[in-house]
């Protein structure tokens, strides 16, 4: 099967890759580009471990084809920190113990970023619904929700 040539931007870097017509974006990231931060928890759009942001939209990497990345801007967990500085959400997650095993964390952080980009001052309920596509089996979500709320509050404080 002839491969498809794709030109895209991944974490700000102009990127080219070859993929088959059936390869998912998640597989391209993990197997072709060596970006293993996004995880496959289900491969069916039900767990959010593969979350990425495509042109400002939260997407399940496992439900998108690699070929669909053509001309888009992709953000993965590897692109979330700025240089050697963690993103405020990442920092809060570490400080508030919002992860246990950490396998859901890349997806949760990307979903939380997508939420805060859209709604910088969410209520607890909005955070809960904003993250409802991300399964975490370890934490019971309590500390995750708190970390997102605190990161949002802190950002608001800084913006002021």
């Amino acid at each position, binding site marked *: 099967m002839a491969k498809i040539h794709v030109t895209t931007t991944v974490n700000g870097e102009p990127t080219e890759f070859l993929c088959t017509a059936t390869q998912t974006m998640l597989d391209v990231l*993990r197997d072709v580009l060596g*970006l*293993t*931060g*996004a*995880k*496959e*928890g*289900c*491969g*069916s759009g*039900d*767990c959010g*471990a593969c979350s990425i942001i495509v042109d400002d939209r939260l997407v399940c990497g496992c439900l998108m084809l690699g070929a669909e990345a053509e001309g888009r801007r992709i953000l*993965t*967990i*590897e692109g*979330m*920190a700025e240089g050697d500085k*963690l993103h405020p959400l*990442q920092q809060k*997650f*570490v*400080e*508030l*113990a919002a*992860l*246990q*095993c*950490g*396998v*859901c*964390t*890349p997806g949760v*952080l990307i979903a939380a970023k997508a939420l805060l980009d859209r709604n910088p001052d969410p209520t*607890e*309920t909005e*955070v*809960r*619904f904003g*993250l*409802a*596509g*991300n*399964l*975490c*089996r*370890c*934490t*019971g*979500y*309590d*500390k*995750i*929700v*708190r970390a997102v709320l605190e990161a949002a509050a802190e950002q608001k404080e800084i913006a002021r």
Partner: protein
Amino acid sequence: MSEHRYKWVGTRQNRPDGADKVTGRARFAADFNLPGELVGQVLRSPHAHAVIKSIDVSRAAALPGVKAIVTGADFPEQPDQVVPAGEMQVNLRDVTRNIMAKEKALYEGHAVAAVAATTADIAKKALALIEVEYEKLPHVIDVREAMAEDAPILHPQMRTEGVTPTPSKASNIAKRLEFTKGDAAAGFVKADFVIEREFTTQPVHQGYIEPHAALASASEDGQVQLWTTTQGHFQVRGFCCRLLELETSQLRVTPSEIGGGFGGKTVVYLEPVAIRLSQKAGRPVKMVMSREEVFRASGPTSGGHVQVKLGATRDGRIVAADVTVALQAGAFPGSPVGPSCMCSLACYDIENIRVVGFDVVSNRPKVAAYRAPGAPISAWAVESTVDLVALELGMDPIELRLKNAAKKGTKTHYGPTFGVIGMVETLEAAKASAHYRSKVKPGHARGVAAGFWFNIGADSSAAAHVGEDGTVTIISGSPDIGGSRASLAMMAAEELGIDYDKVRPIVADTASIGFSFVTGGSRVTFATGLAVINATRDMIHQLKLRAAKLWEVDVDGVVWQDGEARPSSTNVGEFEPLSLAKLAASASRTGGPINGHAQLNAQGAGPGFGVHIVDLKVDADTGIVTIDRYTAVQDVGTAIHPSYVEGQLQGGAAQGIGWALNEEYIYDARGKLQNAGFLDYRMPVASDLPMIETLLVEVPNPSHPYGVRGVGEVPIVPPMAAIGNAIARATGVRMVDLPMSPPRLSAALDAASPRLAAE
């Protein structure tokens, strides 16, 4: 929480692996790759029960790109011998059959063959070319049906253990056990009233988000390396060596970061298969389960059937208890029926007890441990019945439990007498909590339940190394599943009197540290923690020897304080204190590198108790339960890192809420699992839950220098009954079958008021 005298213990430090885990840098099993690796995939039985008459792999083997194929014949026969697997027991004869079927496929999803190929597409095509001739047999899924006289028999050689005389006929009942204390029959005579009910639970999956994955590389000289996601890489080494007839020194297992386990990653599935494929192909082989395979072929925990009979006096003393627990083991014997029986009544001091258990096989995947294995199933039944006693007496449910609570000196029905335990303190804390003292909102109801888990100790090794600059590495063999690196480093920093960030904890592979039992049974902070403390103390002793040498004094003249060696008194002499950095710099002159080691079999793991309180409301039309407020109270010994202790309570409670309200394995008439995916196997999501409040009761464990008790398992025990008890108080309907899902609950509500339902 108690005022602590410690610098690090009891504080909330950033975990050492935090940055890696929030940036995607941390490597989980599926993130490992090797040059030239092949993709391994498994062919699974489509039938619930079938004889494997033949397997023809010739067409698959001829497919270009296929490098190796294995079937049951590639794994040597194993003795009929029981060995520990995490907190459970497994039989080697069965383990080899579970990883690859031999004579029969015993459940839908049972592995029957595996291939290694250059690409996933080729591997998949090859699986389709393997021809398996099956002879379908009648199957049995339900535990009660499996116990019936005329049930289809899974293992013709199986005779029920624990009954005399040994039965002559094969049965699906692998084992019967019985525990007694006092005289149950006589006890019931003394009771003013007796309440008796039957309860059921469905199998539920551990639901770790990271599927099983393994990467094996076998070399021509017989050496093998394996990277895998596991709660116990030494256990993986042990199993693989047994199953593949390797020597322990031939196999080196490196644990990846582990994306959740909850007991389900204490056994092997892919690992021996990947190794065998790699040996045959002469190339590395990577295998990753799909979510569907995880559901169909790994875990879950047992479903069960529990009968409870409690006798009490009018003044609120439970005087007699009779409990019968029948648990599904899956296709091979070895359900957690033992712990289920033992935990069932452990919260209470009851004079007369009889508990009977049955371990029952049926055509389902072999169960694996799941957080406090077995305990939630019997607790669901017992704690619901205790609530019925409270309602009958018109007594506050915490008051009733206080009246009957186990305490120091209580003799359990399974043998041991309790030492220092915190059941009473936990109940008192629950009673005094803001949640319990608050008024129940209109339209809501409140439920309470308690839970117990032993916690375990077992084998651990640890080492402590001083770097050339005086920083410290702590090496353990316990995979970090929920922040244990942080608590181990905190205890080492506390011992050394140095800053937490000068201590770096790592989890070493099987060749780099001595044997350590699995991360499970809530043992790591306790047992591996003890090993780390002892290794650190061993190192401190070395440091004192070095200082004594430099000062030319007796070692007794040196004390270790705040990270430096000091003379114990002015009598010893006037010496400038020697810091870790200074001692490290002069190490070559004083005897070489400075390290400490410890290995132990930890005794005295303190048992844990929990009490959960839930406020909820029930939508009478839909049967949907909304949890409004939830509090988990638990005796945690000493919380080394309170955030991760709270996290254990919150995570366990959330899993219990899922078990109570939604999660279940659903089979069709052909014995096929109908909901092998996260869409239909519904685990709680963020929008299903409120904040989970926690109250840490600290009753220090006298067998640990900092008073640590295991905390991870207790919190999954109380939620089901707490929720059922609240639902009963909200609706007047006592649910006895889990899950209390909307269809089931609304049917029960309709049945309770048929007239209303008809309208």
